[in-house]
């Protein structure tokens, strides 16, 4: 039973890792990287390391995703659209410029 769960998790982590490479959208790749961290943190729980799992979930899945996303914004590769609160569309900058042209 435990082996089955672990096997599913390993496949999930590996496919999310491949997805990081294959995705065209950078924001999607960041989210896929956070899925990798989330899967690995569950693996740590199965390996009886709840401390490491907590760190991995907080830092790997939470903090590093935020830092990467903010880094993408800083580089201008991703930005929040619209000047009012209601109209937020998450569109990569390059595609937006193509639509403008």
């Amino acid at each position: 039973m435990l082996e089955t769960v672990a096997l599913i998790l390993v496949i999930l982590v590996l496919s999310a890792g491949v997805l990081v490479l294959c995705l065209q959208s950078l924001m999607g790749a960041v989210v896929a990287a956070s899925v990798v961290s989330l899967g690995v943190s569950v693996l740590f729980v199965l390996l009886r390391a709840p401390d490491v799992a907590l760190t991995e979930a907080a830092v790997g899945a939470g903090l590093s995703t935020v830092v990467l996303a903010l880094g993408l914004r800083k580089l201008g590769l991703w930005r929040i659209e619209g000047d009012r609160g209601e109209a937020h569309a998450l569109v990569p900058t390059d595609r937006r410029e193509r639509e403008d042209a």
Partner: protein
Amino acid sequence: MRNLAAVLFIGGLGFFLFVLFFRLPLGAPPLVAGAAILEEGGETVGAANLVTAVLLAYRGMDTLGELSILFAAATAVGLVLGRRQLVVSDPEGGFILRAGSDLLFPLLLVVGLYVILHGHLTPGGGFQGGVILAAAFFVPVLARPRRGLDHGLLSFVEGLAGAAFIGIGLWALFARDAFLEPLLGKGVLGHLFSAGTLPLLSMAVGLKVGAELAGLMTSLMEAEGRES
């Protein structure tokens, strides 16, 4: 070329994980040095969570080094992004984001403080709880970017917590002739007020990490607001 290297890395990681799961008995620790600590750690330090016992009692010096690495990183980010007065041009978040942040803030605060205060009893400790605290204070900034966080207050909390960590270490140095040696008696194993100075150290670590990371994320976000 870059993708090839990454694919090789993922293949290696997959191989490692598969070998781990099919060769090792799941959950049986193949430890040598850890076995001795598992044997006597609970009695020597008085902490039910042996990971915290190792981090703050056996290897407290390493934790201090870790904190200084984090401090250097946060300082470097502050240096690179500058401290000029910023005009945040980000719009206010939508209704769902604002309501969600209002709901999440108290929950994250309670979870973070719980993880910090029970670091010597349950999994977790200063570092993990501190990251959760930083997230608790960053989520409202995400929803209402104009309000921001007081960087002066954050630096004050950070400096106070760091000074408290070193102060407790020096206190132990004068009282017991060893830096960061646990003081104040061990108490009853498993009680909230046990394990001597470990909960105090864990609180200092938690506050320092939380203030540092909240300041780091907020300044990253404000730096973007200036340029767009």
